[in-house]
């Protein structure tokens, strides 16, 4: 959310906001208006994100300690809204996609086995689309993410009961090369 707000502001500055720039944040953005490649690169960007381990020793998508390794969102029965607990994960993926424009993602929506197979395709699609929209809000582009549905056709858990069904009501995020 913060990231989205920041991007929106940066965008507004870039295009020259019509309102009078009385906000304090307008100042640090000014140096970026200079043509790139001129002079030494400013150091601050590195210092502003000390929380991210800068060591690129492994693939962040597969590093268990990185939220990018989390790829699933689970749902209540008949529901398709992304619960708050999954927002940090989607935020991480949205940011990753924004920073890696060459990366593509397939979001697969799934349902439990109850009800019409075709209706479940539509419900799974709505779940996947919800994830896609949130990723776009976090910085991903439309072209990077395709949302599709597997309906009830590819259950992760094959038994018949809520213990299984809750695992199957799910959206999965797969990066190019993983599907």
């Amino acid at each position, binding site marked *: 959310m913060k990231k989205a707000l920041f991007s929106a502001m940066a965008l507004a500055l870039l295009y020259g906001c019509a309102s009078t720039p009385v906000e304090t944040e307008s100042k640090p953005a000014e140096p970026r208006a200079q043509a790139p490649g001129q002079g030494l690169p400013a150091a601050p960007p590195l210092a502003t994100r000390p929380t991210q381990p800068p060591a690129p020793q492994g693939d962040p998508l597969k590093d268990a300690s990185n939220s990018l390794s989390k790829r699933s969102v689970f749902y209540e029965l008949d529901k398709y809204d992304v619960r708050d607990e999954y927002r940090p994960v989607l935020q991480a993926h949205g940011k990753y996609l924004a920073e890696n424009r060459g990366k593509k993602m*397939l979001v*697969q929506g799934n349902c439990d*086995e*109850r*009800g*019409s*197979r*075709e*209706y479940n*395709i*539509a*419900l*799974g*699609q*709505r779940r996947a*689309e919800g994830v896609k929209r949130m990723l776009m809000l976090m910085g991903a582009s439309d072209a990077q993410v*395709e*949302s*599709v*549905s*597997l*309906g009830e*056709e*590819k259950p992760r858990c094959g038994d*018949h009961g809520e213990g299984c069904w809750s695992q199957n009501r799910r959206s999965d995020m797969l990066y190019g090369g993983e*599907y």
Partner: protein
Amino acid sequence: MTRLATFLAALFFLAGAAQAQLTIEIIGGGANQIPIAVLPFVGESALPQSITEIVEQDLSRSGRFRAIFVGGVSPPPTEIAQVNFPEWKSRLADALVIGQAQRLPDGRFEVRFRLLDVPKQSQIGGIAFTLTAAQTRLTAHKIADFIYEKLTGERGVFSTRIAYVVKQGARFELRVADADGQNAQAILISTEPIMSPSWSPDGTRMAYVSFQNKKPILFVQHLSASKQPAPVANYRGSNSAPAWSPDGRQLAAVLTKDGSSQVYLMNADGTNLRRLTFSGAIDTEPFFTSDGQSIYFTSDRGGSAQIYRMPASGGEPVRVTFEGDYNVSPRVSPDGKTLAYISRNSGRFQLMAMDLDNKQVQTLTDGQRDESPSFAPNGRIILYATDVDNRGVLAAVSSDGRFKQRLGIQAADVREPSWGPFLGN
């Protein structure tokens, strides 16, 4: 690679399919059954199957006939003059079938039969067929169709075919079989799910949804299998729920390329795509009425999944179902009078029938997970998917709900039935 494997599999008739035939179990009786005696056809032992047996099973399975014991008649009559009518009257038969089979000099066979009216002691009709040994089953089904039509006034469906999907482990097969479940052939084999098979109105092509490319894509396959199945809708997002227009020229389908699941119309080869619904909600499961004028579909535009009807060219939809919060999978009977659909009632999914004239609704089944209804082309029977002990089986119910039967395959999940059209149409 998968495509190639699928294509190769589609090319070959599966000789091994014989041990995985559908078996039929009748689980409910119908009222007003016509008592009929089908006497052994003289000389039929020269044929690979007993025509008499197949005819008798077809008629019994329809729920409209009751087979009368035919033992103790030797030799069976082949001409009306040889029939002891008082005997059959005392056995309470209303109709009698007699016939014979003989090998022709060219190796083919001739089968002739007569349908007799016992109370009137007269012939109702009869036909002679020339056939190869491989056409024995089909000939028997045609004889049953003739008898059914003469005695009920409606066209029989015994010589029609059905399609269904079988899941065995990680293997999916789209199969086509005779209406009695026999003579099954796999027309498509895949390691990824197959769903929503739909016969073209002329019975030559099958539209279905394949997941072989990790997402639902719509294909049309020619049953002659000389052509590779062709994708007709492979847009960004999901492509599913194919439904043929009655003239076979167009397909309605559900695409998500513009956002939510919406109904689109295209030519049968996928060209000339245009969007029919504009709801932003879920619109899916389109189904043409047989006059081609309307499309029924499922939508949650009103807050819950309900059935709607709209003009086949698009336009303002009218809501059709109002009871409950989950009414899906609309299918209209060939005569346009009945709407079959699935309703969720207290957590159970059941097959319903609505009289479209007076809007009266009847619950046809009492299963837990009934789905995917499909009308026989004469509208008399509805085939659907259900489960027994968590295994998918097919079931059939007469459209008045009186007669029920189950069709299952041992150790396999059977689902997604679709009843094909009348032959020769």
